[in-house]
């Protein structure tokens, strides 16, 4: 392959080292081992403000909201593989992720589509709302691609801080999701690289 694929993980949890981030890191670890370049963005560590629904959005070259959203979206739009992750809040994606999804509006209105050819959706909950949250993520990003892309779905249950790191079964599924993304990105399986 020419050049290594870029994988960008967008983490909608307010906790940079919480259960959602732990699971995402496990996915990224597998992708990095397979040769991908990985970036991890915790939305809550940046200044990202609400979309204000400007009527003139389509006419403006740039979104006038002076925050970090465009810089983050530049990375998202540069990705070959996109991971969208959120804890379940209110049986839905977190507000942090929703703020950023809404801010895709300017690119959407200007017909600027994602170039990622693989996506993964990751969510962690203490109980309910896992499928609803994955569905909300899928609906939220599906229209940003030029056509259908494979979306790897990964969900886990974690009741308190640190649970995910101690859940071998969940971590194994996270690594499997990472390998599946790597395969879809055309990367060779980890074990076969040395003998290539």
């Amino acid at each position, binding site marked *: 392959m020419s050049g290594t694929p870029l994988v960008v993980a967008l983490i909608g949890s307010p906790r940079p080292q919480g259960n959602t981030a732990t699971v995402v890191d496990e996915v990224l670890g597998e992708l990095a081992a397979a040769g991908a370049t990985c970036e991890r963005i915790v939305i809550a560590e940046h200044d990202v403000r*609400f979309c*204000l629904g400007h009527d003139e959005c389509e006419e403006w070259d740039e979104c006038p909201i002076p925050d970090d959203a465009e810089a983050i979206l530049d990375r998202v739009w540069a990705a070959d593989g996109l991971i969208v992750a959120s804890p379940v809040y209110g049986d839905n994606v977190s*507000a942090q992720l929703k703020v950023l*999804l809404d801010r895709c509006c300017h690119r959407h209105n200007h017909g600027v589509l994602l170039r990622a050819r693989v996506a993964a959706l990751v969510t962690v909950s203490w109980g309910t709302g896992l499928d609803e949250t994955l569905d909300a993520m899928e609906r939220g990003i599906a229209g940003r691609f030029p056509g259908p892309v494979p979306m790897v779905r990964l969900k886990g249950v974690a009741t308190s*801080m640190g649970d995910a790191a101690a859940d071998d079964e969940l971590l194994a599924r996270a690594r499997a999701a990472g390998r599946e993304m790597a395969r879809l990105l055309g990367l060779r399986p980890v074990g076969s690289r040395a003998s290539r």
Partner: protein
Amino acid sequence: MSQSIDRPMVVAVVGSPRPKGNTSILVDAALAELEQRGAAVTKLMLCDYRISPCLGHDTCSDLERCPQGDDAERVLATVYAADGLLLATPVYYEDVSAQMKAFIDRNVFQYAHDIFLSPKAVGLMAVTAETGLDDTLAALRRFVALSTEGDLPIFSMGGFADTAGAAAADVELLSAARKLGADMAGALL
């Protein structure tokens, strides 16, 4: 007007960033109907308040007040005192707006302190230019289910409006909004 003390209070929580947008116009129509039928009404445009996303503090249930210190506390106080609750949002990417989502997430402080909504009627409204009405109303319904104990009457409406302010001239939409208000009034009064 002479019985203002006895009138049920209906609070509308509006997740649109546009004070005069379609969602807001339709909320006004629903509230006018409620008022006409004897309710007292309060309209909260979330964009007029500072409500940040929840920060997921581990210690939430031990804290007497949310440490964020923004406007969430007083907005929630108004909402939890309501006899009738109207939740209205534009559809943004097949879901509630981020403004509405931040409001929803901040209710976790209430849950952590065993405080639940107890309105006698709930109205849900979603307004879209294209798609996503059912998914957005379902997201609002999930919030109501998480925030309330037991069954309560829920009325909902979805509307299509593709340009700013179009709802103001849409007889059918305005009539659906008034019906939402009338249905809520029927359950409250």
